């Protein structure tokens, strides 16, 4: 099922700008967005290109006819928002921009409800965004939702200027808890390089006091597929040999459980452990967190994969998980709802949180 403005996407695909255009264009990738009645993701998009798309997605170049960015929001909503294996749908929109433009958008539409989700702009000047009559709050009608945002622009006939960039600010306006990250930017839609290092060493705070979760977004040759995203990746703790991690006393403990994610999902660290392991790891510990794409191996199930341009799906089976390519952006989130850290008051009136985007290699 397609969201609003699939026509634009279909037209763009038909005339080849979606894939070909993105192959030589400024792009930016916000790997995670959360939207609900009490949470929103506010993204800032910085455009330093004077060569943008037309409102229909044509490479019109500089000037008024080419003053649009191509926004593509991939999301899973409703009950699917918590389904790690649900596919994402795509919301596709060309929206006004200009050279050195900054657009700050509430993707949920909670804020900026009367300005199409656009925040902080003075409507008396440079209000082309408002005149377009289009909505920047791509998730307004699909709450609750998780997703990621991809934006591209034409960027000139031969340019490699990586002219788009941005930031995200995930904000729980009930408690004021917030975290953020810098968007990745590039000149094509190939974001394999943005995958978090696999493995990445991660520390885990005590499970009995602080919740640790990972936001996982698989990456691919084309981070902006048309209509839907079904890229699948796996995360797991393997610290020495076979599904293990260390507690805070240097004891090695086995019994970890891999988790697969399609498109984007939250994975609780506790769910990556067997129950026997979790019971013995109350104080947390540290682990090597692996992430890699998987492909359907038929009877073998979903098997570890490496990126392979010779295959139609861009993947071929790897000989083992260790030899698979890194395949997902992973953000580690830590939060406590009880207002304590180390059993002592955190002075946060109940909630604090923190997020770390695990860097690529």
């Amino acid at each position, binding site marked *: 099922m397609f969201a609003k403005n699939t026509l634009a996407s279909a037209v763009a695909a038909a005339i080849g700008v979606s894939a070909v255009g993105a192959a030589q264009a400024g792009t930016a990738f916000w790997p995670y967005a959360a939207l609900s009645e009490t949470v929103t993701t506010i993204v800032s998009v910085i455009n330093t290109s004077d060569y943008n798309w037309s409102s229909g997605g044509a490479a019109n170049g500089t000037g008024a006819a080419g003053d649009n960015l191509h926004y593509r929001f991939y999301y899973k909503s409703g009950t699917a928002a918590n389904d790690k294996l649900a596919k994402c749908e795509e919301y596709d929109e060309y929206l006004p921009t200009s050279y050195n433009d900054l657009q700050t958008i509430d993707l949920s539409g909670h804020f900026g409800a009367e300005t199409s989700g656009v925040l902080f702009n003075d409507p008396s000047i440079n209000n082309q965004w408002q005149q377009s009559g289009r909505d920047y709050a791509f998730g307004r009608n699909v709450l609750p939702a998780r997703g990621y945002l991809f934006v591209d622009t034409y960027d000139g006939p031969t340019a490699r200027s990586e002219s788009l960039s941005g930031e995200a600010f995930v904000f729980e306006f009930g408690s004021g808890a917030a975290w953020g990250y810098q968007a990745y930017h590039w000149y094509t839609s190939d974001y394999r390089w943005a995958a978090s290092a696999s493995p990445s060493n991660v520390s885990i705070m005590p499970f009995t006091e602080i919740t640790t979760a990972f936001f996982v977004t698989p990456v691919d040759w084309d981070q902006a597929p048309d209509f839907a995203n079904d890229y699948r990746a796996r995360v797991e703790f393997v610290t020495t040999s076979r599904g293990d991690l260390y507690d805070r006393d240097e004891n*090695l403990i086995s019994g970890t459980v891999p988790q697969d994610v399609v498109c984007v999902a939250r994975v609780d660290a506790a769910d990556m452990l067997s129950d026997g392991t979790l019971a013995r790891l109350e104080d947390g510990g540290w682990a090597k967190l692996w992430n890699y794409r998987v492909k359907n191996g038929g009877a*073998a199930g979903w098997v570890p994969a490496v990126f392979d341009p010779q295959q139609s799906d861009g993947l071929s089976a790897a000989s083992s998980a260790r030899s698979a390519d890194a395949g997902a952006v992973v953000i580690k989130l830590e939060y406590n709802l009880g*207002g304590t850290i180390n059993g002592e008051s955190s002075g946060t009136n109940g909630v604090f949180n923190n997020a770390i985007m695990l860097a690529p290699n």
Partner: protein
Amino acid sequence: MDANSDWAYSLDASDHLWLSYYDESRMLRLRDPKGAESLLVPAGRAQSPSGLAMAARSAGAAVLWRDKYPEKGLYLFEAPSDEIRPQEVGGDTEPLARFVAETDGQGKTHLLWYGEKATEASSDRYNLYYRNWRQSDQALSEIALVMPGIYPVMAVDPGGSLMAFSWQSSDGPQRIASRFRPADAVADKDDGGFRAEVTVAEVPSITPIFEALRLGSRWMVLWVGQYGLDRRDFRLEGAYSDDDGARWTRFGFDDLKGFDIASLQTASDAEGHLMLAITARNRQVDDRAKQDVYLIRSADRGSTWSKASPLRAPELAGRSATEEDRNLLAFFHARNPSVAFGETPGEILVVWEDWRTIRSGLYASLSKDFGETWALSNVPLPRPRGTNLGLRYEPGAIYVAGGSYHVLAERYADDTFKSKQLVQIDVAPAVLSDYAKQRSESMKADEIAGEAQLRQRAEGYWQAMRDGEFEKAYDYLDPFFKAVTPLNAYVANMGKIKYAEAKVEDIKIQGPLAEVNTKIRASVPAFKVPTTGAMMSQPEREALVKNRWLWLDGEWVNEFRVESQDAVFTRY
């Protein structure tokens, strides 16, 4: 004690209880049968004790722990003693905090631990080491490197022979391996007196549930294997040997395939009856399923087994259980069952932690036919209103002394579950029968109030929200949220939303759980975003709010949910 603190116990030959535990300052203490306590590592000096094991002694107990001070080692202390002078037994093996100790019928205490010393004798950094201690002549055997591995698992025969087990994850296929050590082994040989290693079973991955048993002349080992690329094909498995580990017969519990096991406690008698009490849940399809408790029985030392029988049954006053009653239990965790044989043949007691009343309490069942049927079933053990009683995955909570059952339980200090106190509950069969009678009499008084009272409570809550009287609204919230969120912190976070109308639409009650749908009209008056200073607001609009209410401590309370994290403070 800190809620996560370890504790252990052993009984001496007179069935006296010796207890060791880590206190709130992580100091290791020993409590003798008269209740006198001593610090095992003197206060006032650098110390970092961790791990804990105890072994019975004829007139006392042996305590084993790892400390990094005064030097990294494994320390053994025998009580009673005039002075606290533990001896270091780990040598240069760089011991880690996982070890076992067991005393045989000859008074020899066998020690097995794992260390991280790199050695040319092993391809693995982690290896199991063994030595024994003979109290009679104060003799400590040489340290023997047994085999690679991270889980020291051992069973000891009263005659002094032992079987050590390890899960080996390097060098060849991942496997469970065993090494037998006869009672008359010569300890100072290179092999420490152990026979050659034997592969028990190839197992690609295991969880920490890994136990060894001695059943007459049979050795047995039990583990939870993980199979498949996603390692979700959990299997409780085992093997036994009747020829001191030369050959092993492997078995599994097919009805539990896919069930993740959180705890395993065993009990056996001299006639070959063997009981496995487990915490299990099916994770093949859902990581969110609640834990449940089961009993598996054998009458022939594990040659054949019963199916896993759920231990829980609904508590009902004067009517038979319906399917709905049984399904309701799946909403609540139950875990860490412990099982023990009584002194009367055929009698067993099972006790577990159960959250069916939203709080954790202990439930017990008593059988007189080895668990085939239950003479007393699902009897709640006494617990003061408003408190929480729990069990740990180990050690086994039940011990039998003086012809009676005793349960060592953890009572949490408050609803934050941050600290606990150990308590002993005596559960003689006659006492349990009294508890059962008291329970049937009190069930009428404890009957869950119906929709009218819940509606009144829900309307009271929403009226307080409409009036902006958040102190009143706080009173309606569940105590687990209130325990970690003081009133002033709650009130400071409220007020951003202005409620104009609230109408309780419909209510659905299932046992102590209720879903309440309320139609509200609300707006967000302009407020300043803390990070940017920008003013934000929301116009008034209608919304349907779904709340879960809980029947708890004799009233309906609103379960506080942090919607953004889909998180609650309750733990059932």
